[in-house]
């Protein structure tokens, strides 16, 4: 029996990923060349997320075994990735907010508001000769503005993030309905749709956007002062403050960042559905938080992993795909999904956390 059962555990379960960073341990061999450092880096995130990798691989094996001809195709892979892309971009942003000790329940509502606002601008004010980039800017700006409101209320108004973003969830969706008059707004600009729904060398633009978001997110979190500050603020805000970090400003930035991610996601969903609607983005809050937490980011803040988040998103989307291919009925799917979530987390814990057991 582990001795620090609850010590490390905060609340039992608070421990998302108590796995030590193998990348750090690399320094034990300081003679390591840059080459091998890079391999080590790869190996490291592989090792840390080994449980997730195994879960995903198992899922794929099941997919291949049960629907091999249909699961294992390039087209199907792209279908999975395209579905993952919207929620993926949001989850990358969510990783920052959660690592920074916060939470955001309003992401889905912000996506809805962004999409509706952008399409309204497009249909109303815009003459046909205005470029679709205006739509993109509108969505991103609306997202950023909502994030700003969240961030300011949380950081400077000192209201619990849960409450602020719950209020934003209600308000943004209500506002989206008012703006759209509860109608689905159809996007007629073919250039916009063709651009975002197109492919670059066979890979859908949406998937490229997701990949870009993940890479940028990873760099930002792991390789910049911004990321370091985020983790410090999430880990111990008082210590961060006394080390001269502007905790409130940093907190506000995180929500704005997530707001921008929601704005981009709004553009993506607009392209995917060719519509703006106040019903877009339903339950995105749960989906994205689930992906982030399954990935190993600590819900209590202070530790975050973009790679884990990406795996989390992929696991959920692949799961749905495998279910669909196997023609499982919805209720059975729900039960199976519950069991698989638990199994995946236990696997990740046991595989990656073994070294940490006392």
């Amino acid at each position, binding site marked *: 029996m582990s001795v620090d059962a609850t010590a490390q555990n905060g609340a039992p379960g608070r421990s998302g990923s108590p796995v030590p960073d193998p990348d750090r341990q690399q320094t034990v061999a300081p003679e390591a060349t840059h080459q091998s450092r890079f391999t080590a880096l790869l190996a490291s995130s592989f090792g840390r997320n080994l449980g997730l990798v195994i879960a995903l691989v198992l899922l794929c094996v099941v997919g291949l075994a049960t629907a091999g001809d249909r699961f294992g195709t390039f087209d199907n892979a792209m279908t999975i990735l395209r579905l993952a892309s919207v929620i993926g971009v949001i989850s990358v942003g969510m990783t920052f907010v959660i690592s920074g000790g916060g939470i955001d329940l309003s992401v889905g509502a912000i996506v809805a508001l962004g999409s509706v606002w952008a399409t309204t601008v497009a249909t109303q004010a815009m003459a046909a000769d205005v470029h679709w980039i205006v739509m993109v800017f509108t969505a991103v700006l609306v997202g950023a503005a909502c994030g700003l409101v969240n961030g300011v209320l949380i950081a400077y108004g000192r209201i619990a993030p849960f409450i602020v973003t719950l209020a934003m969830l209600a308000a943004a969706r209500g506002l989206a309905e008012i703006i759209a008059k509860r109608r689905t707004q159809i996007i007629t600009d073919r250039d916009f749709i063709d651009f975002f729904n197109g492919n670059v060398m066979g890979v859908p633009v949406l998937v490229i956007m997701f990949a870009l978001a993940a890479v940028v997110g990873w760099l930002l979190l792991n390789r910049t002062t911004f990321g370091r500050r985020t983790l410090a603020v999430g880990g111990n805000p008082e210590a961060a403050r006394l080390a001269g970090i502007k905790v409130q400003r940093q907190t506000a930035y995180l929500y704005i960042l997530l707001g921008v991610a929601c704005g981009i996601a709004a553009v993506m969903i607009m392209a*995917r*559905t060719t519509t703006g609607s106040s019903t877009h983005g339903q339950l995105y809050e749960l989906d994205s938080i689930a992906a982030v937490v399954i990935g190993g980011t600590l819900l209590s803040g202070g530790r975050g992993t973009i790679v884990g988040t990406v795996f989390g998103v992929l696991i959920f989307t692949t799961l749905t795909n495998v279910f669909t291919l196997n023609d499982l009925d919805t209720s059975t799917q729900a039960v199976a999904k519950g069991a698989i979530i638990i199994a995946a987390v236990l696997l990740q814990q046991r595989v990656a956390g073994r070294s940490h057991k006392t």
Partner: protein
Amino acid sequence: DDGTGSQSSAPRAASDNDAPGKKVVIGFSGPAADHGWLGAINSAAKAEAGKYSDVEFRTAEGTNDASLQISQIETFINDKVDAIVLLPTDGAALTEVATKAMNAGIQVVNVDREFSSPFAARTTILGDNYGMGVSAGTYACKLVKDKNLSNPVIAEIAGIDALPLTQDRSKGFADALKACGQTVDNRVAAAFTVESGEKEASNLLQAAKKIDIIWNHDDDQGIGVMQAFDNANRHEFAFIGGAGSSNAMQWIKDGKMEATVIYPPTQAADGVRLARLLVQQKGLSDLVQVEVPRRIVLNAPVVTKANVDKYLPLGFKS
């Protein structure tokens, strides 16, 4: 066990349409079956497919997320199914992917919520939400006239307000009321569930001390609405329902409900049949036309005590 499939037992013109033909793979995708009407839609579609040995039926997880539903259609396209029966969470949002399916040579049957482009489906079966509101409103007008109400209080309990279909129903209702110079005095929106119906109706009853006519969009939430009436012991009004569950029909028989407007839960089942015919290149046997029509709008008839026996077998269990 479910009353939904019983329509198929109705007599029809002799044809070889039901004879096994070329194997047909049909993909079906609908919104989350989170209430009785949608549950009935799903099970009726499945039951209908089960009747044909030449149909291979694939269902995707019901969802209210347009993005997820799009990916399910994409999966069907990847699978190269022969036909897709699609009840979209939002017609406009699935137009693009449906068009893609059509372009891939798949016969798309659009059910209930209409696409925004005529090229997105080979055939469209509509339950006519606007018509449903009109039927309810017209019936309400008739009540006003029959009962000679001078300044009637008319209330509406809508379904999920953010859905375009709810807007269509409400607009139909309002338009029909306008015809007899009436308006909706109190309106609440529930969420198609029993519980939300009870909750919204409870508050609604407090909002108006006396009500003459209530139209409730959905008979599933109607169970809760009816219970709220019982709880508050308020039955002074004429209660009109929507969708046409067997409960509602029973209430009409028992005199607890004035009427209900049918919104057929068999649309998807019809869609499955049409999809099969489309792939096997058969026509509708009762039509002289040799091809399946492009558009079928189902009627939204009003069930009252007078005709309830005729519709009772159609009622779905909520």
